[in-house]
């Protein structure tokens, strides 16, 4: 006779406020198999867990139902509790009476109590059919992959490498460095971005445990935590990395000029190029789309000029496959395309630029050598308007979220304009000024007080050209009056958005992303750098808008998680896998094609039948590959396949219990 113990959690008033917990516990006593039932204020607390352990002993319980919060929250907690109470961890079932009951039905205690009772009854019915399951172990490949070579990726790689593990950084651009390399100064200290980034880039390049795989993309990911098999496409650089010395002669002689992406198209690079002078690796690639030789078949200047004969037009993309124990995703962000704003000129006004353009304009190595000149005519602008929240906090044309960094970088820009152009006027149109961060609000205060930037609370409705001026129309909402600025240049603080191929990568690696294509963390508070896919961690702005200090902090956190995984020789596997009843299996093989992990196959078995030995085929599950989705169990018509912990019998019992 099975003896089930039922424990109803009040979760303070979170549950007890809407559900009569005592009554639920009382009701549960009448359910078949229940030997003990009680309620308690905080089941997950130390005394709560002690209560469960004591009840196991006192009432000889062999199965436990905890009705509390979502199992996605505390299932691991209570499984550990069962283990230390002497029961197998998988003899636990949870009824979610908080997220699925008390929190969503706060106003009808009677019905919420009724529902909670039924949820408990379902859990009891299921747990009666639970079987003890044993975890096994798999070896862990001690190598980490970092996808993305911006500041977050570099930091994560350095931390993992310093812990003694081999790390590969895969970066799609010819150089690591990411967006931070484009930025001029960093808030709130105004120290030079390149000065703090390049040493990190060099450190990564020289680290014995780090391999840089630049100009490369992820092609395919298979496997699972501890053993991901990743195929990487190394795009043809057309330059032999082992021969090239990075002398740069080819870049000087190349006849084809192409607008430089790094310089926001404000100046040119060559078709054979490194994105910027401090690039790492500092060896060029040929941009085949624009190269004269690749487009017309003639030229070969770089090949001729190269002193080491490193140029190789015949190179092809190369696919390499490598096994990794952990993956850190640090693919960063992109900037919102403001050309959707007709009222701001659809991107056709030359002197309406974005913050990143502005970074290049003030950078000493940028297209204007650090002199602020407006793009249209090269004049030094006197009246500069900054508009915040372009694409952010705008459900109609942009994104609903706040991009978090714009308030500070706009304050930085305003300061720099006032510093570099003495007779300038700066107008900042804003909706809110959000400056939570160390030294941030002080910086903003200086921007208005010491540097005299004019902050105007209101969104700009229209910008139009009048002569060589830009007319900017807004409302000063603090005064309640329409205002107009005749500006020389307008800088838009455009939103941070997910990379255009963010969803594709997530689908390839197999983790989730939100409606804006930012990657979803496993828990917003308690697991901010993990994904729901074990062994895959998040760093930087791919998870949501972040500034540099936050990205670096998160990168180190992700690295710590990866190191935690790589520090073990082997790891326990989830025992919730499919299994085959060979006596029933007809060997039809319908299960094989539905398995996404290639965990199913057919094998030949021998058995005695009618006095002779015969052979027949049956399905077999590779429990190392099986991830426990259960797709095969439905493909199997004779139910020879079953999923442990979510067996046909268990689910039918739940359905029956619910429908009573």
């Amino acid at each position, binding site marked *: 006779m099975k003896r089930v113990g039922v424990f109803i959690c009040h979760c303070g008033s979170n549950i007890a406020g809407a559900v009569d917990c005592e009554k639920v516990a009382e009701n549960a006593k009448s359910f078949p198999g229940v030997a003990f039932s009680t309620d308690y204020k905080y089941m997950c607390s130390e005394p709560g867990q002690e209560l469960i352990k004591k009840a196991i002993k006192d009432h000889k319980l062999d199965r436990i139902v905890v009705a509390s919060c979502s199992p996605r929250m505390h299932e691991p907690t209570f499984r550990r509790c069962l283990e230390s109470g002497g029961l197998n961890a998988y003899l636990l079932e949870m009824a979610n009476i908080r997220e699925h009951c008390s929190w969503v039905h706060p106003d009808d205690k009677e019905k919420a109590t009724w529902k909670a009772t039924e949820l408990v009854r379902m859990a009891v019915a299921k747990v009666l059919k639970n079987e003890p399951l044993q975890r096994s172990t798999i070896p862990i490949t001690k190598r980490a992959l970092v996808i993305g070579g911006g500041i977050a990726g570099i930091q994560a790689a350095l931390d993992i490498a310093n812990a003694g593990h081999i790390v590969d950084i895969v970066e799609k651009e010819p150089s690591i460095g990411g967006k931070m390399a484009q930025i001029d100064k960093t808030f709130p200290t105004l120290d030079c971005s390149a000065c703090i980034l390049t040493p990190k880039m060099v450190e990564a390049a020289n680290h014995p445990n780090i391999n840089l795989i630049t100009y490369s993309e992820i092609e395919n990911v298979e496997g699972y935590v501890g053993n991901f098999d990743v195929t990487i496409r190394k795009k043809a650089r057309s330059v032999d990395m082992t021969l090239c010395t990075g002398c740069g002669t080819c870049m000087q002689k190349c006849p084809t000029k192409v607008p430089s992406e790094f310089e926001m198209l404000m100046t040119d690079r060559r078709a054979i190029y490194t994105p910027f002078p401090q690039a790492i690796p500092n060896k060029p690639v040929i941009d085949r789309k624009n190269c004269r030789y690749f487009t017309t078949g003639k030229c070969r200047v770089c090949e001729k000029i190269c002193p080491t004969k490193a140029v190789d037009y015949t190179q092809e993309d190369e696919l390499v496959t490598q096994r990794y124990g952990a993956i850190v995703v640090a693919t960063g962000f992109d900037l919102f395309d403001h050309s959707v704003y007709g009222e701001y000129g659809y991107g056709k006004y030359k002197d309406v630029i974005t913050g990143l353009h502005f970074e290049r304009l003030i950078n000493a190595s940028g297209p204007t050598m650090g002199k602020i000149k407006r793009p249209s005519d090269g004049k030094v602008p006197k009246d500069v308007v900054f508009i915040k929240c372009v694409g952010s*906090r705008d*459900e109609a044309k*942009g994104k609903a979220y706040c991009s978090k960094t714009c308030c500070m970088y706009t304050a930085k820009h305003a300061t720099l304009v006032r510093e570099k152009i003495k007779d300038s006027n700066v107008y900042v149109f804003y*909706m809110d000024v959000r400056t939570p961060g160390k030294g941030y609000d002080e910086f903003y205060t200086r921007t208005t007080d010491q540097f005299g930037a004019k902050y105007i609370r209101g969104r700009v409705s229209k910008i139009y050209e009048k002569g060589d001026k830009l007319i900017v*129309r807004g409302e000063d909402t603090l005064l309640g009056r*329409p205002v107009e600025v005749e500006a020389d240049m307008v800088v838009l603080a455009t939103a941070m958005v997910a990379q255009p191929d963010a969803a594709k990568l997530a689908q390839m690696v197999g983790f989730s992303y939100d409606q804006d294509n930012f990657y979803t963390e496993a828990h917003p508070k308690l697991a901010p750098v993990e994904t729901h896919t074990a062994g895959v961690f998040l760093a930087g702005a791919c998870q949501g808008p972040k500034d540099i200090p936050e990205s670096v902090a998160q990168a180190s956190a992700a690295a710590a998680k990866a190191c935690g995984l790589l520090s073990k020789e082997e790891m326990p596997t989830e025992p919730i896998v499919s299994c085959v009843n060979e006596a029933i299996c007809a060997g039809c093989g319908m299960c094989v094609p539905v398995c996404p992990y290639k965990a199913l196959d057919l094998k030949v078995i021998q058995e005695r039948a009618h006095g002779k030995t015969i052979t027949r085929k049956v399905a077999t599950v590779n429990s190392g590959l099986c991830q426990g989705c259960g797709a095969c169990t439905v493909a199997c018509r004779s139910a020879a396949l079953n999923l442990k912990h979510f067996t046909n019998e268990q689910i039918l019992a739940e359905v029956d219990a619910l429908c009573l």
Partner: protein
Amino acid sequence: MEKIELTKALAQGQQMLAEVTHESGGVRASKCYQCGKCSAGCPVAFAMDKTPREIMRLLQLGLMEEALKSHTIWLCASCDTCSTRCPREVDIAKVMETLRIIAKKKGYVAEKKLDQFHDLFLKSVERNGRVYEMGLVLGRNILGMQPFKDVELSPAMLLKGKLALLPHTIKDNGEVKKIFANVRKRGGKV
């Protein structure tokens, strides 16, 4: 400056706010985050006593009377610039329209001339099925008890065949009259 009793205002304004939301087909003032983009782009804002954003603010706080008595709601030209550009997708022009209808019901007409114009216009439509522009101009003149400002334009218009002296009508205007009657039956304030 007069102090606003927020508790009282909120209590009094709730019901009317619900009416505005209902009448406007679901436009919620609470969505507005007061960025002022509507007022910045409004071509009539220069003539208004309150910017459109301020009207939205009054609604949010329940200060309905003040909104209904404003000139703003009458001066709105229904050009839809505000609604087109609103980052919160609030149909502000529709709110203005709705407030005007409610204001009229309550007898708050801050811009009498504009109101008379619309009344005369619709009277002409009901009577004739179409608008009789000369009649409209003259009617406004008489009702408004003021000289017709466009008087210098009228002879030229007549000359150019641009003002008809006799009303344009449709032969059997029974159908249009019925439409007006049916709308009234359904509680329309025409």
